[in-house]
Structures are given as structure tokens and as C-alpha cells.
């Protein structure tokens, strides 16, 4: 088995290290970590005896490593298996004397090798932080690197698991980012939306929060105040996360090894079961059981409807009418929960706090879903060879683009509509907030349009969906998350004016400003943020149209 692991490890790791993209990632992380140290480097000659500045740098580098890990690590394991299946190289591996376990552990170790390099690229910056004083090598630095390694292994196993279920690199990326997001952020929301109390439910919600690695990292950084109240003060978040990880890694590895078989290469598709061809009683029962029968033969694209839009919905895994109805139903449930949360949260923590939480949740969902919907709209067609077929039809670039964008916008609109009742509750409790809520809704619409156009423009410049999706995630996270990093440093080193100008680029910050969320009250982001979002969207639209025109024209 050791020999097998070594063979796979060598092949995978070498393949990764030969990639220019990996080198760029490592360089990028090293530069980002170095910049953080420079920003926090003492500008005066006063000696910091208590080591507070050193600890501050340590915190920043830790969060930089954490961000790099969740952005970069899921990409490789999730696409690795899908690529092996599509290129049929997995077939060769499975037919070799290598055991499934050695293939799996070889791949995990290869990814881990990359993770070691990724984390090592922050070492020079960390060393500078250590020189500032206040840090222990064993208690702080080594422990934190080990924790980061554990989080990365967690993400690697998630990625590999996702890879055994998905069939395309695009879907693998979308799902692994989705699961990563679910693991990191979602466990926080129940406790944040339904705070307080000592009931079993409340304790369960606080416990749920600890399956995310964030509380553990916060505890190691002594930033307990950021993680809220309750369990963090009484329970060891690090230990809880270690226990959860041990269970997850064992079960995840077992499932992954089990799934790593020929069945991955031999997945049969539906043979085209259609209700119209079934017996009368089957047709009758399905008519009762289904609002929209997914197996019913389509009557064709209705007149006056853009065929590209219908095609986009049909091609999407969850784009069919029955799935859209389920989405609406899911959104309705989410809406009810948010309404309840708004009512309860408003009582205990104030309207602004609840409003801010809903905004962050909505924008997170937009950022998570939009690249999956829009980043493949052109790149996917080029990659699959169907773009030439579209070009050979009489449809012009405007019609093609309109159909594609409408299909994304309708889905995002459904998502946004789900949260309207939550805002209605806020307005009911505090009617004076009505104009602010309207401003928030406008900001959310701007966020959705901007996200869609960024993803679509990225798609028009790429020839592979996986690259377009990764790039779109990167840009969106920079716009919606990166600008907040400047806001976090609002006292030092960035001045108020700079922070305000940077926040104007982020429609989510504008929404938080409109609802008067804590930390955003000092800025005046509206209406300039709308103008910026509007002009950016217009420019992106022009670029997108120009690119589509170029791609549809004869070469």
C-alpha cells in the first residue's frame, strides 16, 4: 500500500507543481501575507513591550491563511476526480494493482503537499510577526499551522467526496464551494438569528456553531468576543472541532474509498422514461402526485419566448419547472424562518442587527449561486462545442445574450423575493425604517445584477467553465469580501475617507449602511454606491455585448 501511495503522490504532486497557476497562487498568498505585515509594521520608534502588535499581525496572517485555504483548497480535490473520470485515467488506475485506499490516500497526501507549500508561503510574514514579540512558537504559531492543516484536510476530503458525486468540473466546483460555505458560515446563522436562551434548542444551535472551524480559530486567537455568547465561554471550541473533524475525516474517507470504484465510470443515464407512454393508471396517478410532471413530454417552446432562455433552464440541473417550484417552496420556508427570526431578533438585538444578518445571508447566497448560474453561459458552450451551433443559427448576439441573462436573473429574483417578508416584519416593528428598507432592496438588486454581469463577463473571456467559475468566485469574493477587509482596518492603517471610497464599490456595504448596521453608521455610501454599481453594470453589459458580438462574428 505504501508503494501505491508513493506512486500516486509523486504523480499528482508533480503535476500540480508543474502548473503555472499553482505557482501564481503560492506567490499571491506570499505577497498578500507580506503586505499584511507591512500594513501593521510599526511606524514609530516606540517599542511595543506587551507584544500586542505582534499578536495583531499573527491574527491577520491567520485570517489570510484561512481565507486562502477556503478559496484555493476546494478547487483542486473536487476537480481532480472529475477530470480523472472524464479522461478515463481513473479506469487505468483502478485496473492497475493499486488498491483503492492507496489511490485515495495518495491523492490526499498530494493535496496535503500542496497545502504545506501554501501555508509555508506565509512563513516569512509569520517570522516577521514573531520578531515583533508577544508570540510563542509552540503555543501560538505551530498550533495554528496544525489547525490550518486540519482545516485543509477537512476541505480536501469534502472536495474528493464531491468529486465522486459530480460529473462536470463546473458542478464539482460549485458543490465544493457550496459545502465549504455551508460548513463555515451556515452553522452560525441559527444561533445568530434566534439568540439567547438556555433551552435544549438554543443549546443545540450553539453547539451547531462549533462544527464550523471559525470558532476554534477565534478561540486560538483569543478573539472570543467576536464569536458571540454562550458556549464559547464555557466550552472548548478547539476540542469540539477536533472531535467533529476526526469523525468527519474517518467517515468521509471511508465513503470516498468505497465510492472510488468502477461504478464511477459506469453511471447509466435515464433511458428516457416518459409518462405519455405509460399505462392510463400511471398517467392518472402522476397527474395527481405531480403539480408539474418532470417526465411529461414537452409541448415545445411557446411562441414569443426566447428559446435560449428555455434551453438554459432545461440544461440546468435544477432548472426544470418542478425544480423551480421546489425552489419557490424552499424560498417560502426560508422566508418564514427569516420572518420569525426578524421578529425574535428585533426584540432582543434590535432591528439593525437582524436586518444586517439578513443582508449578509442574502448576499452570501447571491455570491455562492451566481457563478454557478452565469459563469458557464458562454465558456460552457465553447467548451462543449455547442457555441458554433448557436452561431450557425439566425439568432443574433443580442437575442442569445438576452435569453441567457434572463434565465439567471429570474432565478436570482426568486431568491431575493424569499426574504421580502423578513423586511416586511422589520418595517412593521419600526415603520420609520421603510425608506431604509427600500434602499436595502435596491442595493440587493444591484448586488444580484452586478454578480450576474461579473460572472457573465468572466465567462465570455474563458474557454473552460471551471476556469470561468473559479475566476468569477475570486472576483465576487474580492468585491463583496475584500472591500470589507479594508473596512475592518478602518482605524489603522486606513483612514475614514479611503474606507468610505472602497466601501462604495460594495453594494452589500451600501445595504448595511442603509440599514444603519453597527460599524457602517459613520459612512455616507448612498447614493454614490448605487451610481458606482449602476455605471459598473452598464460598463460590464457593454463589455459583455461586445465580447458576445466578437464571439458570434466570423473568425
Amino acid at each position, binding site marked *: 500500500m505504501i508503494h501505491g501511495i508513493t506512486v500516486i503522490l509523486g504523480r499528482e504532486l508533480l503535476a500540480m507543481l508543474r502548473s503555472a497557476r499553482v505557482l501564481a497562487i503560492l506567490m499571491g498568498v506570499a505577497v498578500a501575507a507580506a503586505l499584511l505585515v507591512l500594513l501593521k509594521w510599526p511606524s514609530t520608534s516606540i517599542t511595543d513591550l506587551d507584544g500586542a502588535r505582534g499578536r495583531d499581525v499573527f491574527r491577520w496572517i491567520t485570517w489570510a491563511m484561512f481565507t486562502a485555504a477556503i478559496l484555493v483548497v476546494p478547487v483542486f480535490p473536487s476537480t481532480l476526480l472529475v477530470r480523472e473520470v472524464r479522461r478515463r485515467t481513473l479506469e487505468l488506475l483502478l485496473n492497475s494493482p493499486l488498491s483503492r485506499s492507496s489511490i485515495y490516500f495518495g491523492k490526499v497526501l498530494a493535496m496535503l503537499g500542496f497545502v504545506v507549500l501554501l501555508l509555508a508561503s506565509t512563513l516569512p510574514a509569520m517570522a516577521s510577526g514573531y520578531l515583533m514579540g508577544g508570540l510563542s512558537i509552540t503555543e501560538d504559531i505551530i498550533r495554528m499551522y496544525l489547525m490550518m492543516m486540519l482545516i485543509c484536510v477537512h476541505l480536501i476530503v469534502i472536495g474528493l467526496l464531491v468529486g465522486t458525486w459530480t460529473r462536470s468540473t463546473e458542478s464539482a466546483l460549485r458543490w465544493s464551494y457550496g459545502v465549504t460555505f455551508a460548513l463555515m458560515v451556515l452553522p452560525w446563522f441559527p444561533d445568530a438569528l434566534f439568540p439567547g436562551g438556555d433551552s435544549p434548542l438554543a443549546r443545540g444551535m450553539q453547539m451547531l456553531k462549533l462544527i464550523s472551524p471559525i470558532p476554534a480559530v477565534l478561540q486560538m486567537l483569543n478573539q472570543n468576543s467576536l464569536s458571540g455568547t454562550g458556549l464559547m465561554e464555557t466550552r472548548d471550541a478547539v476540542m469540539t472541532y477536533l472531535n467533529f473533524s476526526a469523525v468527519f475525516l474517518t467517515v468521509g474517507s471511508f465513503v470516498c474509498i468505497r465510492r472510488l470504484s468502477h461504478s464511477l465510470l459506469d453511471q447509466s443515464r435515464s*433511458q428516457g*422514461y416518459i409518462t405519455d407512454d405509460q399505462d392510463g393508471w400511471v398517467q392518472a396517478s402522476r397527474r395527481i402526485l405531480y403539480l408539474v410532471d418532470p417526465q411529461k413530454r414537452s409541448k415545445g417552446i411557446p411562441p414569443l419566448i426566447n428559446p435560449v432562455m428555455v434551453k438554459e433552464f*432545461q*440544461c440546468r440541473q435544477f432548472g426544470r419547472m418542478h425544480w423551480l417550484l421546489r425552489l419557490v417552496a424552499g424560498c417560502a420556508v426560508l422566508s418564514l424562518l427569516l420572518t420569525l427570526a426578524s421578529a425574535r431578533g428585533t426584540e432582543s438585538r434590535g432591528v439593525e442587527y437582524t436586518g444586517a444578518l439578513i443582508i449578509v445571508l442574502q448576499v452570501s447566497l447571491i455570491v455562492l449561486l451566481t457563478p454557478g448560474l452565469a459563469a458557464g453561459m458562454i465558456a460552457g458552450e465553447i467548451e462543449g462545442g*455547442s457555441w*458554433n451551433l448557436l452561431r450557425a*443559427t439566425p439568432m443574433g448576439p443580442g437575442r442569445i445574450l438576452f435569453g441567457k441573462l434572463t434565465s439567471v436573473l429570474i432565478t436570482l429574483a426568486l431568491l431575493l423575493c424569499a426574504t421580502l417578508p423578513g423586511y416586511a416584519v422589520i418595517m412593521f416593528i419600526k415603520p420609520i425604517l421603510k425608506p431604509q428598507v427600500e434602499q436595502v432592496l435596491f442595493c440587493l438588486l444591484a448586488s444580484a445584477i452586478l454578480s450576474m454581469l461579473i460572472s457573465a463577463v468572466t465567462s465570455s473571456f474563458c474557454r473552460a467553465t471551471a476556469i470561468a467559475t473559479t475566476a468569477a468566485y475570486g472576483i465576487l469574493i474580492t468585491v463583496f469580501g475584500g472591500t470589507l477587509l479594508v473596512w475592518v482596518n478602518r482605524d489603522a492603517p486606513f483612514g475614514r475617507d479611503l474606507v468610505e471610497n472602497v466601501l462604495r464599490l460594495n453594494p452589500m456595504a451600501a445595504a448595511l449602511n442603509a440599514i444603519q448596521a453597527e460599524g457602517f453608521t459613520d459612512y455616507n455610501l448612498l447614493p454614490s454606491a448605487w451610481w458606482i454599481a449602476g455605471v459598473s453594470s452598464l460598463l460590464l453589459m457593454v463589455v459583455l455585448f461586445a465580447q458576445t458580438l466578437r464571439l458570434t462574428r*466570423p*473568425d
Partner: protein
Amino acid sequence: MATENPVVEIQNLSKHYGEFVALDNLSLTLDRGSILGFIGPNGAGKTTTIRILVGLSRPTSGSAMIGGADCVRDIAKVRRLVGYMPDKFGSYDNMRVREYLDFFGAAFGISRKVRQKRIAEVLELTNAVWMQDRYVESLSHGMQQRVGIARTLLHEPEVLILDEPANGLDPEARIEMREILLRLAGEGRTLIVTSHILPELSRICDQVAIVAGGKLRAMGSLDDVTRTLSQRRTIEIQLLSAEGIDAVGEHVRTALGADSDITVSAAETTIRCRTAADDQQLGGLLRTLVTDGVAVGQFREVAGDLEEAFVSAAREAEAERMGTATQEVSQ
């Protein structure tokens, strides 16, 4: 190569990608209702020509017309006149065959009612009715090719351009494909078909065009093309008995020269010669054999095949390329 009723007219078509010449002054015309086999080695310029014809690429110089519409200026008209099947299928996920065809029908602006009728017709024509509810990506390559042809027929195009339709098909699927193409030609459509499977093309095409190195090497009926391009002819000499056949073989070898390939088959009482000898030399050989008392049953030229012509054109192009390269080096 002017014809009486041309539907496709290409005049001095050239396409350059920087220094690289993909097409060099290609001219050809094609009559309505004919099947043109468009063949050539990889990188010969076939796909470039096809892409210009369907409006996906713009020529550097020259012109191409389909049904009187210019492939550069009247792209919209050309798209309605041409049904194009590229070598890559271009499927969509989660779409059934019927939905796939419905989408392309709608993209061509066919009304829903007419579309449903047309889908049924093209599925029938391509023997694909049974797969109408299958998911496109779950189909085998041969099935996908049939759906691809059905798609090209939806808007009832005058000219069908099929890039490698028989590529990757098993023999049975290839026979089916051949039948479908012949049926389409029988309906009066003009077909341009590229393929590497030459015996397949020789069975269905009434015209053959061989391109190599971006140039048209030969065009015409199969016999014309093979005669034009084949540098050596095959002569078959059948004897009435196998007695002394080896000695006769040696005699033939001496008469035709050492560069001829002579195969003696005692079982078939036949001597086959691949030779560059002209009619006069062959006449001399026959006279000598008869004079020497050899019992000759048959002395005939066997028609050359497309494969031979193809190889000959490819070699010619390669020799040209090498010549150019040598000139450049010496300069």
C-alpha cells in the same frame, strides 16, 4: 470546373492565419442534388473551407456563394440555406432529443406547430424516432450523429454540410449513415461530406474533391480523380494455367523495370503489376507474352481507388511543403 446548375460556387478562396496558409486559391462549383466527398489529410483545409461556407469564418480573399448568397455578406441568408453538422456534436446536459431539436427549431424561427411536424419528420428520416425521449448526452456516438443530422434538417436547408459524419462509427452505424445520406440526396439536397473513411465516401459520392496543403488537387468523378492523381496503374494479367507462372512473372518484371511491383499468385493464376509504364510499353509487353506462347486469359487495367489518390495528393502536398522549406533554408 464550371457546371450548369451550381448551388455552391467557390472562387479563388484563400485563408491565411498570420504566416500560415490554410487555404490557397481554392475554386470549385457544385451542382444541385449532388454529393461531394471533400477529402484530404489532417490540416489540409477542409474544415476551414466548411467554416467559411457556413459563415463561421471569413476568407482572406476570394468568394464563396451558396444558392446565390454570399457567405460573407449574406450570412443570415446562408444560415437558412445551409444545414451544418460540425465534427464535434455539441450536446447540452439534461436535454432530451426532442427538446434539443425543439430548441434549434425555435432558434431558426420555425413556428411551434410546424416545428412539431418537422421534428417528427426528421426523426423518421434519420431512424431516430425511438430515441426522441432519451437524454442527448446518454446517447452513443452513432446515435448522436443521427440526432446531429436530424438537427441540420429541421429548417429544410438546400445544402447539407457534414464534417466527418462517419467518424468513430461502427460498421453497422456506418451503413445506416450511408443510407441516410443517400436518402437525403434522393430528396434533391446537395451534400458536402468530409470523411477520412474513403471507401465509405467512394460508395456515396458522385463528385470528389481532394485538398491537401490548402490547395485543391483534383475534383471530378471518382474515376477522373483517381486517374488524375494516381501515378502508377495496376495491371492484372490472368493466365489460363499456373504452369510456369513464376517464369512469366520474371519476364514481366524485366519488361516493366525494377521499380514496378510484381505480385505472382499461382492459386489465382494471376500476375499483378503496379507500374508507371505507359500504354505503349504495356502493349509491347502483351505482344511479347503472346509471341512467347504464354496462354494469357486476360490482360486488363484495374481501376485505381480513392485511397491511392488520397495518398498521392498528400505526398504531393508534402513534397511542395518540403520544397518550400528547403528554399527558405537555402536563402
